[in-house]
């Protein structure tokens, strides 16, 4: 016999994500899902951001990687509570992985929880974790064609941080095209051009982040 179902395939993940969202809302913590390709500079952006806001905001971090704990050690060195999730092969974090580590973080004491997703421009955008906002990081060495090649990530993100702009003189990249395509895909996206190496542009990013979370 035929069964009419009409169920979203990711319904199980979305239910857990809703549960996470409620926990975060009850604890009064703003949760940000940070996504990019491998090597775009998510962890460095996070380090530089934490250094600039930690006097005003209590930050916690969940690091997602396929293997290893290098990123968690870098965050731990800043004396910020951090948990490392190793997905063991999965190319993205899902809501259940987040739910399973929440007891390891002092959620109730935090103002901001950053979830650094697995480096990947495709899959993380599909899986809700319970975050309030997604932020995409794109480094200019990746090329200006990325927003149109990986549209979902840019459509889902509230902000786009364009990193490594100190390298602009050495590259043929068209940063204006990145901006134009990202805005076409998502008219409300906020865009910041930064260099985590020189510090250029980080003040504007940090100021916006603070007004968003507080």
């Amino acid at each position, binding site marked *: *016999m*035929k*069964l*009419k*179902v*009409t*169920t*979203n*395939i*990711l*319904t*199980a*993940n979305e239910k857990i994500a809703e549960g996470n969202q409620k926990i975060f809302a009850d604890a009064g913590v703003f949760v940000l899902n940070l996504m990019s390709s491998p090597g775009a500079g998510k962890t460095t952006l996070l380090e530089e951001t934490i250094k600039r806001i930690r006097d005003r905001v209590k930050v916690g971090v969940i690091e997602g990687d396929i293997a290893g704990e290098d990123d968690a050690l870098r965050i731990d060195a800043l004396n910020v509570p951090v948990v490392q999730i190793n997905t063991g092969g*999965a*190319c*993205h974090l*899902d809501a259940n992985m987040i739910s399973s580590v929440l007891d390891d973080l002092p959620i109730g004491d935090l103002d901001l929880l950053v979830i650094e997703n697995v480096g*990947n421009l*495709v*899959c993380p*955008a*599909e*899986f809700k974790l319970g975050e309030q906002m997604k932020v995409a990081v794109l480094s200019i060495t990746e090329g200006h064609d990325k927003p*149109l090649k990986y*549209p*979902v990530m840019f*459509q889902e993100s509230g902000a786009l941080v364009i990193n490594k702009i100190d390298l602009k003189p050495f590259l043929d990249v068209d940063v204006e095209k990145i901006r134009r*395509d990202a805005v*076409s*895909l998502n*008219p409300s996206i906020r865009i910041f051009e930064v260099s985590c190496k020189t510090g250029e542009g980080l003040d504007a990013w940090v100021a916006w982040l603070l007004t968003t979370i507080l």
Partner: protein
Amino acid sequence: MHEVSIAESLLDVAVDNCRQSGHTKITSIQVLIGKASGVMPEALLFAFDSMKEDTIAKDAVLDIVEVPLRGHCNECGKDFEVEDRYVLACPSCGGLQYTVSSGRELTIAEMEVE
């Protein structure tokens, strides 16, 4: 690569629905996959076929229906459909005030059970 997780979720949802209806075997599943969903049908099919083996869906055929990306322009009032996986502007008037009406689906539509 996330097609593996999606196939896993798909199997969970399908098996639950089959059991709840009092049946014990799934023979086919029809899914709607939007062209802008970020899922590759071939990869989903491959993942589904390799994961169904030890389940009540082991003989199930996965029927993937691709849903085109469609929208309505709020500036010129026309409906449109695009071939791409994304839409940047209304194809008729170039307007940016449009609403996407389909193309992001990841849905199980119906299944045959015994």
